[in-house]
C-alpha cells in the first residue's frame, strides 16, 4: 500500500486547498445546464405508486399491510427485526390495491415484490414526532429513528444508513459527498443550493453520532453556487471544511473521493471505516434531518429529468414509487425526438436502460435521462481491440481493462480475477474512451455474474457433499450398530445354549425329529413336490450334522436375512 497520510498531513493540505488526485478519469461533456437553472419543482400526484419492499443492500423486511388497507403518507409498509433490513413507507395516502411482482428498478428489469398503492389525491400524512433535543437522546434512539425512517444511502449504493452510523471504530474524517460527477445530473446541486441549511442539520446529527475529528464537505468545482451556499451554511463550524474538488469523472466514487481528499486507499477487501473515513451523500443528510428533527420518513427525493428529448428538463421532488412515465409526462417528454425509444435511469455513464416506463422511482434513483436522436449515440458493433490501452489510462482503479476484457471474453475467469476483476467499480470510463467501441463494462458484468453463479453452484455442491457424506456416515454407523446388536444377541444365545446344558440341545433334537417325521410322511403321497422336499430334507440333513454352535451361527445367518 502507498504511504498512509496521517491526520495532520491531510489537514495541512486541506487548509491550503491542495488536494491529491486519483489516476485516470475522463472528462465527458457535462450538459448540466439543461436542468440546473431552475428550482426543484413539485409534481402533481400520480395515480399509483409502486413501492418495492427492498430498496437497499441487505435483506427483505416483512409486510405490515395487506390488500385493501388504507395507508397514510409516511406509514410504514414493512418492518423487520433484522438489522440489515430497512423499512419502506407509503409515499402518499391511498389504498393498497396490489401486493405482488412488479418490474424492478434494476438493469435486469426482473419482477420483485412491490406494494401498489392507488392514491386518493389527498396526500394525508401520518402524525410524526421528531427527537427535539437529539443531543440529549441516546445513540440507540437516534439510530432507531434513522432506521425507522427508512433511510438508506441516496447516493446510489443504498447501504442502510443506520448501520453505517453505528460506528464502533474511531472516525477521523466524516466526508459529505456533494460531488455529483456524472454528466446531466443536477439533483444534488439544486438540493445544496436550496436546502443547504437542512443538509447542515443532517450533518450535525451525523457528527453527533459518529464524533469524527473533522468533517469534509466535498463539492465539484463546476458547482460554484452550491459551494457558496454550503460554505455559508457551515461557516460557524470550524471543524467543517467545505472543499472544492476539480471536476473529473468519477471523482464522486467513494474510493476515489477518499483518495482525492486524503490520499488514503480503501483496502480491497475492506471498507472506508478501516482507514478512518465514513461517507454520506448530501441527500442522505437531508433525509436524516427530516427523520430526526421532524420524525418524517423517507417518502420523496430529488430526481433530475433531463435529456434533449425532454422539452422541459427540470429537477423534481419525486415520491418514492412514482412510475417513470409520470415524471416523463410532466416534463414534456417527446418520444419522436429520439432515434429509438430509450429511457435511462441514472446518468449516461452508470445508468441503466429501462425496459418499461412503469418502473418506479426508488430511493437510489437520481436521474431519468431521455436522450434525443443525436445525443448519446449508441455505438456500432465492436471492432477488435488494438491494445492502445486508452482504457488503462482512464481507469481510476489502475486496472488493466484490456486484460480483463481478453480474459472475460475468453471466459478464463481465474486469470480475470488475478487481474482484480472484482475491484472494478463499473464507472464506464474505459468503455467511454475505447476507440474500437468495445462495450467493456458489459463484458465485466457478464464475467462477474458468471463467477458469482459458479461460486453459488460450488457452495450448493459443497453443502450437498457435506450432507451426502453425513448421511453415508449415519447409515454406516447404523449398520455397524445393527451388526453389533446381532453379534451380541448371537453371543447371548450361544451362552444360553451352553449354560443351560442339554436342555436346549434336547429341544432342538426333538424339533428336528418332528420335522424329519413330517417330511417322510409327505414324501410318500406325492412325487411332484420332490424337489422342494428334497431341498428341505437336505437342509434338515445338514442341520443334523451341524454341531450346536454351528446351528447357532446358522440361526444367526437366517435371522440376518430377515
Amino acid at each position, binding site marked *: 500500500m502507498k504511504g498512509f497520510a496521517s491526520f495532520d498531513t491531510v489537514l495541512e493540505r486541506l487548509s491550503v486547498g491542495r488536494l491529491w488526485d486519483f489516476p485516470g478519469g475522463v472528462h465527458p461533456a457535462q450538459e448540466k445546464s439543461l436542468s440546473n437553472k431552475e428550482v426543484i419543482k413539485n409534481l402533481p400526484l400520480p395515480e399509483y405508486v409502486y413501492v418495492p419492499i427492498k430498496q437497499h443492500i441487505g435483506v427483505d423486511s416483512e409486510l405490515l399491510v395487506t390488500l385493501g388497507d388504507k395507508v397514510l403518507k409516511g406509514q410504514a409498509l414493512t418492518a423487520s427485526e433484522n438489522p440489515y433490513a430497512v423499512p419502506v413507507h407509503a409515499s402518499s395516502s391511498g389504498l393498497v390495491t396490489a401486493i405482488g411482482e412488479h418490474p424492478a428498478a434494476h438493469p435486469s428489469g426482473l419482477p420483485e415484490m412491490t406494494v401498489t398503492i392507488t392514491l386518493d389525491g389527498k396526500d394525508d400524512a401520518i402524525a410524526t414526532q421528531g427527537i427535539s433535543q437529539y443531543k440529549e437522546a441516546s445513540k440507540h434512539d437516534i439510530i432507531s429513528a434513522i432506521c425507522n425512517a427508512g433511510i438508506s444511502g441516496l447516493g446510489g449504493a443504498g447501504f442502510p444508513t443506520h448501520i453505517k452510523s453505528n460506528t464502533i471504530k474511531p472516525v477521523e474524517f466524516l466526508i459529505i459527498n456533494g460531488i455529483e460527477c456524472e454528466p446531466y445530473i443536477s439533483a444534488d446541486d439544486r438540493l445544496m443550493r436550496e436546502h443547504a441549511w437542512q443538509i447542515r442539520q443532517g450533518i450535525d446529527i451525523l457528527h453527533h453520532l459518529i464524533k469524527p475529528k473533522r468533517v469534509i464537505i466535498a463539492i465539484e468545482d463546476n458547482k460554484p453556487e452550491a459551494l457558496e451556499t454550503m460554505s455559508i451554511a457551515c461557516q460557524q463550524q470550524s471543524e467543517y471544511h467545505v472543499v472544492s474538488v476539480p471536476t473529473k469523472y468519477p471523482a464522486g466514487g467513494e474510493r476515489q473521493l477518499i483518495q482525492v481528499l486524503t490520499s488514503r486507499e480503501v483496502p480491497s477487501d475492506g471498507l472506508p471505516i478501516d482507514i478512518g473515513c465514513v461517507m454520506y451523500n448530501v441527500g442522505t443528510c437531508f433525509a436524516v434531518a427530516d427523520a430526526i428533527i421532524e420524525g418524517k420518513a423517507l417518502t420523496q427525493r430529488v430526481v433530475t429529468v433531463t435529456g434533449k428529448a425532454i422539452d422541459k428538463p427540470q429537477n423534481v421532488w419525486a415520491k418514492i414509487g412514482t412510475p417513470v412515465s409520470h415524471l416523463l409526462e410532466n416534463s414534456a417528454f417527446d418520444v419522436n425526438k429520439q432515434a429509438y425509444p430509450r429511457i435511462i435511469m441514472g446518468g449516461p455513464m452508470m445508468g441503466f436502460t429501462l425496459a418499461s416506463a412503469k418502473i418506479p422511482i426508488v430511493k437510489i434513483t437520481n436521474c431519468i435521462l431521455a436522450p434525443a436522436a443525436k445525443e448519446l449515440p449508441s455505438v456500432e458493433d465492436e471492432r477488435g481491440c488494438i491494445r492502445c*490501452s486508452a482504457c*488503462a489510462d482512464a481507469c481510476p482503479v489502475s486496472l488493466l481493462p484490456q*486484460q480483463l476484457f481478453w480474459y472475460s471474453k475468453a471466459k478464463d475467469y481465474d486469470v480475470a480475477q488475478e487481474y482484480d476483476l472484482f475491484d472494478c467499480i463499473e464507472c464506464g470510463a474505459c468503455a467511454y474512451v475505447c476507440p474500437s467501441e468495445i462495450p467493456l463494462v458489459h463484458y465485466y458484468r457478464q464475467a462477474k455474474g458468471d463467477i458469482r453463479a459458479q461460486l453459488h453452484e460450488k457452495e450448493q455442491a459443497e453443502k450437498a457433499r457435506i450432507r451426502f457424506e453425513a448421511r453415508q456416515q449415519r447409515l454406516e454407523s447404523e449398520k455397524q450398530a445393527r451388526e453389533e446388536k446381532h453379534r451380541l444377541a448371537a453371543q447371548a444365545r450361544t451362552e444360553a445354549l451352553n449354560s443351560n446344558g442339554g436342555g436346549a440341545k434336547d429341544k432342538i433334537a426333538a424339533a428336528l425329529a418332528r420335522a424329519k417325521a413330517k417330511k417322510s410322511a409327505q414324501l410318500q403321497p406325492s412325487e411332484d413336490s420332490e424337489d422342494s422336499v428334497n431341498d428341505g430334507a437336505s437342509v434338515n440333513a445338514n442341520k443334523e450334522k451341524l454341531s450346536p454352535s454351528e446351528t447357532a451361527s446358522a440361526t444367526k445367518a437366517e435371522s440376518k436375512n430377515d
Partner: protein
Amino acid sequence: MTKLQVASSPHHHNQRDTGAVMRLVVYAAIPGIAVQTYMFGYGVLVQLVLAVMTAVVTEVVILEIRKKNTERAVKDYSALLCGLLLAISIPPLAPWWIIVIGTFFSIAIVKQLYGGLGFNLFNPAMAGYVMLLISFPVQMTAWLPPVSLTIQNVGLWDTIHTIFTGYTASGFSIAQLQATVDGATMATPLDHIKTALSEGYVISEGLNDKIFNASMGVGWAPVSFAYLIGGLVLIKAKVINWHIPASMIIAAMAVSAVLSIYDMSTHASPWFHLVNGSLIVGAFFIATDPVSASTTNRGRIIFGALIGFWIIVIRTWGGYPDAIAFAVVLMNLAVPLIDYYTKPRTYGHQNKVRNMAKPSPAKKSQQGDK
C-alpha cells in the same frame, strides 16, 4: 409506449474511434513527408501512392475472403497507415515492385494472417521492411543524395519513370543518380560512418565530409526534426503515450554516450545517433504501433528502452547501418513477457508477486454486489 431499447452502460462515448486515431497519426506525419520530399525529391510521394493503393486493395481482398465487414474495417485507416510507414522507410527511387511486395507482405502475411487488426504479433510495416532488406539488399540500399548535393535534378516525371523502369526519362540509371557533385557515390550518413570505420578512419575523420553539417547529415537531420514535431503533436493529442518515445530515445542516447565516452574515436556521439537515420521516426511513429507494443505503461518504458539499446548495438556491431526495423521486430517478440511482469498496482492492493499457477480466491464476490 413502444418497446424500449435496452443497452449496457456507459451510454456515453467520446466519439474518437480507431479511424480517427489513425488519421491523426497520418496528419502528424505530413510535416515529415513534406520535408522528405523537399530534401530528397518526389520519390517518397510516388512510393506513398503505390503503398497506399496496394495496402488498401490487399486489405479489402483478404477481408472479403475472410467474410468480414470490409467497409467498416477499411474505415479504420490502419492499412493506409501501414503503407505510409513502409513507404517513408525505403529508398525513394526503389523499384515499384519493392513497395508492392513489401506492402502486400505486411498486410496479408504479417497482419491478416495473424488474425487482422489487433492480433498481429509483429509490427507489420517493420516486418515488411526486414523482409525486403534481407531479400533485396541491393535495391533497399540504393539511397539518393539530398537534392542539394546531386548533379542531376530528378523531376516528378523522371521519378515516376525511374521507379517503374529503372531509368530516368533521359536514360540515367540509379547508380548514376547516386553520384554527388564530386562524382563520389552517395551513402547515407550512417552507412558512410560505418564504411569509414571499417576502412580504419576514426569518427571525426568520417564526419569530415560534405554530407555532414556539423555531424548532422545534410537532408537527413531536417527530416528527423520534422517528424519530431509531428510526434510531439501526437503526444499532446493523446494519440500516443510519451513512454515509448522517451524511453527509446533516452536509452539510445545513454548507450551511445557510454560507448563514445569509452572510445570517442570509434563510436559516434549520441547526438549523431539521434539526428541521423530513423531513430526519431521510429520512436514516435513506428515503435508506438499499439498492437505490437507493450500495453502497460511500465512495460512500455522497458520495451522502448530495450529497442533503443538494440538500435545502438546493431548499428555499432551489426551488419546493417540502420537498425530500427530489426530492433522493433526483436522486441515485439518480448512483449507478452513484458506485459506479464508489469501489471500496475491496483487501488486498495499491496504489491505482490504475481503467481499465475495459484489464482487468488474471489474474496470480493460479495462486495461486488453493491
